[in-house]
């Protein structure tokens, strides 16, 4: 029986607690009697016979007819799936998307459907490498569809392949992939790792154009997104849901398949990362010492290679299929069941370790902008109700924050860091002053469409993701980061956790209360 998450009040008996530091980790001692550590719930038990459950969900969908009844021989069927930003780290094969797509194709074959396209719904993310496609979909699908050109990746910059569906009541434009828009049925295969994913967001962002995405991927709505993990209090999600309703009324029929996974993210020998420190066995301690000591000696390149090779032994906790909105409500329940931890009130300081990965650097480098996005965008937003830190409080992150960028994946990030951040780190200013230039840069566009680069505007989106956190926190300190880089992000560098707490005392006084978000293990703090 997995134990629920809980809030630990740090006392003098509490052993130092784990912090990620990019491609490494450290143990830090938090001040006794005024710190608390929020531990995530233990991984829920996974479903046995997952393929059976998927088939079952397809045959008994929510608020829709069973999939076989929707399949007609002469129809246009489009199957879309989440890109490499899910799951993190990538899950051990077979991936859920492979299982779903194979199950759908089985039924389509039975029904005699000939016209099938499979599209990676990657929005403005970088295109997936073939080996990534193979990891996600499996060799059978890739070998059958890729050579014939029926398996391809969404291109938001291809004007011939984008169709306008219409405008929402608030005047937002909805533009999506033309093939999907013209299909008789779109099946979406999804993995829900956190509550932000899924629902209408899958399709209306994954298959959308820049014009459509900028309707909600902008500073104004992201500053009003409280939080990304709580759809009902997120301006971003509200806009997306309006588009979803438009899609329901005037778009193709969408059959959504969502799966939720548990938090078993690290295989042996890294399981100790998710364990509670006082339960570390001698083996765990030995592994921690050996790995953290040797990681300190290795060059970044090698460490990255090691970590990105990790394949998570995630287990799937639920499968639901059918009408998007209904499916997603069920999904959210299941996601929250895994993630929610009840927390009482806010504290002056929030500490978090930034891991080696974020949704925007699979197989890539965690550059400084992504550190900001991961810290203030994702981890800060892991709440429901109120943020864990008081308004004007301090956020302390641990990460080496080296000034390194992946030249192929993140070309526009380099210029964003050099040019835009030198000018401003205010999302509103950069959006009016710089965003258009980057979005329409021909070279970035070319790289996005033909190489494996994120869209030119993507660093702006990554930055906007942290807009709410940036606005909320009085001060952000990065422990162990390169000082110049950290300052350029608009944050304060500190060499040790104690220094950081000293620096924080300028803002929050001499004996502030502290919350620490224990990562890994994903959690959403339900702050009362």
């Amino acid at each position, binding site marked *: 029986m997995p134990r629920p998450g809980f809030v630990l*009040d740090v*006392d003098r*008996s509490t*052993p130092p607690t784990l912090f990620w530091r990019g491609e490494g980790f450290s*143990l830090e001692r938090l001040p006794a009697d005024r710190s608390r550590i929020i531990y995530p719930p233990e991984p829920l038990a996974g479903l046995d016979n997952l393929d059976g459950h998927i088939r079952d969900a397809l045959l008994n969908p929510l608020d829709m007819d069973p999939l076989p009844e929707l399949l007609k021989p002469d129809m246009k069927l489009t199957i879309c799936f989440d890109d490499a930003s899910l799951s993190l780290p990538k899950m051990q094969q077979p991936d859920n998307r492979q299982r779903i797509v194979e199950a759908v194709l089985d039924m389509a074959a039975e029904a005699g459907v000939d016209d099938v396209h499979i599209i990676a719904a990657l929005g403005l993310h970088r295109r997936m490498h073939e080996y990534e496609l193979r990891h996600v979909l499996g060799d059978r699908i890739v070998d059958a569809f890729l050579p014939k050109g029926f398996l391809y990746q969404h291109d938001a910059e291809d004007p011939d392949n984008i169709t306008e569906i219409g405008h929402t009541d608030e005047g937002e434009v909805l533009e999506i992939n033309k093939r999907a828009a013209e299909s008789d049925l779109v099946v979406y295969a999804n993995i829900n790792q956190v509550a932000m994913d899924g629902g209408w967001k899958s399709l209306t962002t994954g298959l959308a154009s820049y014009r459509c995405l900028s309707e909600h991927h902008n500073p104004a709505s992201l500053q009003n997104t409280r939080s990304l993990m709580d759809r009902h209090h997120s301006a971003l999600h509200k806009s997306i849901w309006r588009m979803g309703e438009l899609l329901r009324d005037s778009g193709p029929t969408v059959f959504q398949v969502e799966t939720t996974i548990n938090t078993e993210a690290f295989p042996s020998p890294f399981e100790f990362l998710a364990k509670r*420190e*006082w*339960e*570390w066995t001698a083996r765990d*301690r030995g592994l921690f010492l050996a790995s953290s000591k040797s990681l300190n000696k290795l060059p970044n390149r090698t460490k990255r290679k090691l970590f990105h090779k990790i394949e998570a032994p995630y287990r799937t906790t639920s499968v639901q299929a059918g009408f998007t909105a209904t499916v997603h409500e069920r999904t959210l329940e299941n996601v929250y069941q895994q993630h929610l931890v009840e927390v009482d009130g806010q504290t002056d300081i929030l500490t978090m370790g930034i891991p080696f990965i974020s949704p925007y650097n699979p197989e890539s480098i965690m550059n400084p902008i992504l550190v900001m996005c991961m810290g203030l965008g994702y981890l800060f937003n892991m709440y429901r109700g109120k943020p864990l830190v008081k308004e004007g409080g301090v956020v302390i992150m641990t990460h080496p924050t080296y000034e390194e960028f992946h030249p192929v994946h993140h070309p526009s990030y380099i210029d964003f860091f050099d040019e835009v951040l030198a000018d401003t780190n205010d999302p509103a200013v950069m959006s009016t002053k710089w965003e258009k230039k980057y979005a329409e840069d021909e070279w970035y566009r070319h790289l996005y469409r033909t190489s494996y680069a994120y869209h030119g505007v993507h660093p702006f989106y990554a930055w906007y993701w942290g807009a709410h956190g940036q606005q909320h926190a009085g001060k952000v300190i990065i422990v162990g980061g390169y000082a110049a880089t950290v300052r350029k992000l608009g944050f304060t560098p500190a060499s040790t956790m104690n220094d950081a707490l000293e620096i924080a005392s300028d803002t929050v006084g001499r004996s502030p209360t502290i919350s620490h978000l224990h990562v890994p293990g994903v959690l959403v703090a339900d702050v009362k």
Partner: protein
Amino acid sequence: MAGRTSHQYIRRGQRPDGAHRSIHVAQRAASMVEGAVRTAARPLARYGFPYRRPTAPKHVVVPRKPNGLGDTYDTEWARQPLARSLRGVIIEGPMRLAVRTIASPRVSGLDRLTDLLRVDNPRPVIFAPNHHSHIDTGVMIRSIPASWRHELVVAAAADYFFDARWKAALSALALNAIPIDRGATSRATFDRLRDVIADGNSLIIYPEGGRSPDGWGQDFKGGAAYLSTRTSAPIIPVHIDGTGEIFGKGANRLSPGRTAVLFGTPLLAAEGENTRRFNERIEAAVARLGDETLTDWWTATRNAASGRSPKLSGPDHNSWRRQWRLGEKRRGSTAGIRRRRIRRWPDLG
């Protein structure tokens, strides 16, 4: 030397009955070693968690894993070929030597087992001896005929022999011991014993459930009888005499002497006999063997026939007379007597 001190100003110790000198010496030695170790270990003090075991925060319940000790200890490995051959070496080498020097058992009554032994592959049996000492098991293993000896399992108290990993491993390896819970024998324990018998192993089980606290026996518990009725393995009552004097319960040194092991006629539960009655019969058989050891076969038989066999558990009264009777019993016994009595002049101080 007891009572003398090296300090000049105290001539006589106040309590000449204590052997305190060894403690003083030990304490001084430990203190010296401790000092040295402490100095050497001083740099280690900086290293806390994760070099050392973490302490748990207050109010946190640390789930406890079953430690796999006690009656949950899995002894299966001790019956694998490697462990078996190692045990063979132990039994034929050091154990043989030790039993001969310490206990020099005189084994008799083996002729009563010939019917069981005359076949090629003798069936598993359950030996039910009385229990006075830890060395009983060694003596038994050495006394049991070789065809059973190498497939012999000993039922040992889970709370004593299996409470630490090293003890458990040693008991399992050297004695082929299996943990049994002497408080309330669980279903699992019984199933385990039944399985090892079904695998062709014979079993030594002490029906008294523990060593004698005062030299007299204790009432038999029904486990052996129950096991026998369920597995139809015959019970062989055994009486061991003299081990209590050599290394009885609470003794802190060995005083080597002689022992006598007397095997009785194999018993099987009669048709329709319940476990309790069968158990009583086993106890009576062992008591009879005890009588036979002290007297002779004919006297013991007549005593048994007339119900006058001295009870293993001694006289009912609970006073000095009990000890007195024990002394009487011991005088009659040929066993347990020191082999070489060291004659010394009386110590007149």
